[in-house]
């Protein structure tokens, strides 16, 4: 790994410049304006002059309901991420190491395809499947006529199912990309040295695929925390999240500063969690 010296600085700038310039102009500057806005007492577009205040952040601390919503959202994000990991990693492992040849391509494409369907349409289809009298219910009754009516829609499990379904391809894709890079010869070598499958996995395969696991986890946890459409559609009254509260501030109260404050609190929470887990992950990857 080359250390940053004068020669490399040009390369670094050339490589990261375009992407970060783009991000700065379209996201960082607008979001900085929003961050500033969160300290105003009035929405920036309102003609009356605004003054600086901490009251929106104070509201988050004063009103327990917003902290409750934040906790629920973080919890939802964690649950969805862990489920995606538990379900997605073995699937990626199968795809990368077990399936070979043309089959692997075909199944890879099959995994990726649902990725490209519209999230809302997918979620509504889940509502159709999970509702009482819906498709899952009818299927169960075909097999077991005496079973009670499936009442899973408008509950927390339904929200988790919907979100896991949406984000599963992310995890499979990122884990696959990492697993697929692990040379088979490394595995062969470890086996020939006497490693059994369990140890092989724990000490060789999994640590080497950790970057993929972390990438997938981050790309799932972060947006899942902010989700509010799936919780609304599949959770009904049980689908209360912080994203829902943010939406209120933009569609009902026109209180952008408060909505911005809530969003930045959410960003802060997510960053803190990821930063807290980062050293532990680093350590496991150190061996590489």
């Amino acid at each position, binding site marked *: 790994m080359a250390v940053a010296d004068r020669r490399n600085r040009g390369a670094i700038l050339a490589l990261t410049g375009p992407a970060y310039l783009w991000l700065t102009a379209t996201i960082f500057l607008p979001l900085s304006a929003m961050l500033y806005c969160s300290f105003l007492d009035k929405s*920036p577009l309102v003609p009356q002059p605004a003054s600086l205040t901490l009251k929106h952040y104070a509201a988050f601390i004063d009103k327990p309901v917003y902290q409750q919503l934040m906790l629920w959202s973080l919890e939802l994000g964690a649950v969805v991420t862990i489920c995606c990991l538990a379900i997605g990693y073995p699937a990626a492992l*199968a795809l990368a190491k077990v399936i070979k040849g043309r089959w692997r391509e075909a199944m890879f494409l099959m995994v990726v395809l649902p990725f490209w369907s519209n999230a809302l349409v997918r979620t509504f289809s889940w509502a159709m499947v999970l509702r009482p*009298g819906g498709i899952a219910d009818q299927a169960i009754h075909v097999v077991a006529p005496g079973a009670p009516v499936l009442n899973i829609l408008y509950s927390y499990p339904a929200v988790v199912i919907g979100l896991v379904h949406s984000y599963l391809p992310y995890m499979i894709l990122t884990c696959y990309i990492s697993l697929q890079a692990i040379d088979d010869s490394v595995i062969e070598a470890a086996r020939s040295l006497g490693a059994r499958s369990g140890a092989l996995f724990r000490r060789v395969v999994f640590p080497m695929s950790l970057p993929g696991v972390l990438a997938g986890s981050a790309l799932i946890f*972060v947006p899942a925390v902010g989700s509010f459409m799936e919780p609304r559609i599949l959770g009904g009254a049980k689908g209360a999240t912080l994203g829902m509260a943010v939406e209120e501030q933009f569609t009902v109260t026109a209180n952008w500063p408060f909505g911005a404050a809530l969003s930045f609190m959410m*960003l802060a929470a997510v960053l803190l969690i990821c930063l807290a887990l980062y050293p532990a992950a680093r350590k496991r990857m150190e061996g*590489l």
Partner: protein
Amino acid sequence: MRNRIGPALLTAHLWLVLVFLYVPIVVMAVLGFNASPLYALPFQFDLVWYKALAGNAKLIDAGINSIGIAIVNTAIATALGTMAALAFARYKFRGQTVMQLLLFPPVAIPWLVIGTSMLVFFYWVDIKRGLFAILLGHVALSLPYVIVVVGSRLATFPRAVEEAAATLGATPWQTFRRVTAPLLAPGVIGGALFAFAVSFDQFVISYFLAPPGVTTLPVEIYGAIRKGFTPEINAISTIIIVVSMGALLLTARFYRFGGER
């Protein structure tokens, strides 16, 4: 002693996962052929929604807009993102961690906030609503995904191969073209797939920055929730899935997604 059960279990698990992934897709496709506008069961086959779709120029235009924007977005985001990921992996420099942390806000901040902030900012900077503004936003939201995905591939990379090539006398450019690029390719493809998905499903930017009269498919679908979500939406979604499948299969002919094996 080779473990026979392990691989078999993994394969079975993969099949189950595929079934799970396709449940709503199949339901969505089938209901596009159901007569009831309210998605009422029992199922009654009818092509009425496909016929309605054929006459629905607005929805078709929206679909075409979405695909066009997504393709351009994918090209730009993948290129810029891969370059940035290479820089993070190959060089260690001050500020690197901060720059990586800055990838969180686009993904973490709720879309309403991002959309509104872009709307207001573009208004102040006098960038008019339009396809250019939409593209600006789409690429920005796709970049974190590309950078993270390509970055994770680079991290798993057997660096030794590159170093071996260098010691054997290959120039940095040759090393890149013959060694790094092919090994990197699955990561880049993965990033491109994400970028396409993000753009194609991207509704917030398009909603806020599209000029009157121009829409994209996700915006139409979101609007349909209020106005009337008819199986026409299912019909166009099914068509798109089928077309995507075709495009992916076609691309697979030219490139092995599985990597060189």
